[in-house]
């Protein structure tokens, strides 16, 4: 069984970015928000959010530099 076989996740990937990094960000975003909702503000969740934001912006710049 792959990720594409999971309901909702499969649909999201099917209609999604067709790019692994963006797909990971699309799937990881709500999970991270859920963790923040449960755990609250902590060094771990703050770090996770900052890494998410940095991954998003640096990946766009990386793609820009590549093209």
């Amino acid at each position, binding site marked *: 069984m792959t990720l594409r076989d999971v309901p909702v996740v499969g649909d999201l990937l099917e*209609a999604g970015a067709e790019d692994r990094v963006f797909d990971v*960000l699309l799937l990881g975003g709500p999970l991270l928000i859920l963790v923040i909702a449960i755990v609250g503000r902590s060094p771990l969740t703050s770090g996770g959010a900052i890494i998410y*934001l940095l991954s998003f912006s640096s990946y766009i710049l990386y793609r820009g530099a590549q*093209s």
Partner: protein
Amino acid sequence: MNEAMETISRDLGRMFLALAGLLFVSLLVPIVWGEYWAIPALIVSGLLPLGIGSLLTSTFREATQPGKLHGMIIAATGWFCVALFGSVPFLLIAWTVELGLPVLETPAQTETLAAFTNPINAVFESMSGFTGTGLTMTDNEEVLPRTLQWWRSFIEWVGGVGVIVLTTAILARPGSGSLTLYESEARSERIHPSVVSTVQTIWWIFLLFTFVSILLLWVVGMPLWGAINHAMTGLSTGGFSITDNSIATYDSAAIDFALLPIMLLGSIAFPVHYLILQGDLRNLYTDLQTRWIFLYMGAGTIVLTALVYVNATYETLFSAFRYSSFQFVSAATCAGFQTAVDSTNVALGRWPAQAQLTVTFGMIVGGAAGSTVGGIKLIRALTLLKGIRFRIADVFYPKTAVRRLKINGRRLDEREVRQEFEEAAIIGFLWFVFLGIGMFVLLLILPQGEYTLENIIFEVASAQGNVGLSAGITGPESLPTLGKLMFLFNMWIGRLEIIPVLVTLRALFRRGGIYQ
């Protein structure tokens, strides 16, 4: 029933089904927050469009595909009906608390929630939400149940992209007349040849940006529930808030500045976002509208900062810049978040007249076509400016000269120039006509001397531009019923760029035999 009515009914039914889906998804919120008393109201609100939608779609399943006229009527009536059905949760939740049914253990009634027991206030809030306006009938959003806070944010988030775009993404199949409907909802740009693929791409971009915005706001210090709601309403440039004084409640420069890129993202066209995400960063300056967004937001901020600083509205240059940049970007992106309020600094309605009119200018022009913003749109304003220059320069050329007008990388011939200029001029003209009508109505019904003329221009431009900034006129008590009805119309035509609504009204009057 004739063929056209069958087509319109079938497609309206699809929109109602999508709306029912939104309401049932929202059931998660009262469950998570323990507002169990709100669940019956939400279920009834969802069953209503579900029942009517199922009936219409199944009865007229075999109806023909929509043409251009049908598309416009479906868009106009669909948005109106969706706003009507979307008001039911406000009405039912307010009445659930008002009646205080003991079985449901409802909380105490508040003045803010009680305003929604009046159906006009509920419809106003719903129309304001779906059209991404953000003008509100609430006095204090903080005391609203979380369910309604969420519903307000959710309808703005969906409305920002478009109800038809949502319906197409979920329910439409390729070749089912989706293109006609898509174009009727004030959209024309396509990312892929297929409309269904285009709307799916729009949705994943929008989802991704929403997650990024939520996390950005949370990182700079906003509580998570606020970050979720404000990210949704900021990105969709809707502007509803869950706090009493909008963003001013946080009184944080970091939050103010973090919201600037979020609102700007909402004002850039989705096809440009797609290209940028693909790595083609040149679009930030090669695309005409995107380039002008940065130019005119920058220029507007500088002018506004100078005006409020020179007039001593703010004591320091930093404060003048902070509030001016936020308010101009908020106005020009049609988000409508407010940081200039009396509780923390100086309310917008008390800014110098020239500063208020500068903000009004931003609201009228708006951002890029193909984004989530309202207003006339940058491309039309630029087409008008370039078209006027082209016409004037024409006198200096011989009659036989073959001239081309270059707009956004396209070289238009005489016929194309006339067509594009005509469309921009018609919408621009109608925009100002309805702005004038709205001002006239407000001048008639508001108490003499209570508001200045610039306050009234500001408020009507805000409603029609789907912005949501307020000079203090809009409110459950301060705005008379006729004014609420006028604003409902302003918000409706503003979101659909006027023409589909006028076409629908004409079709109604003609077919209804009112003036035949």
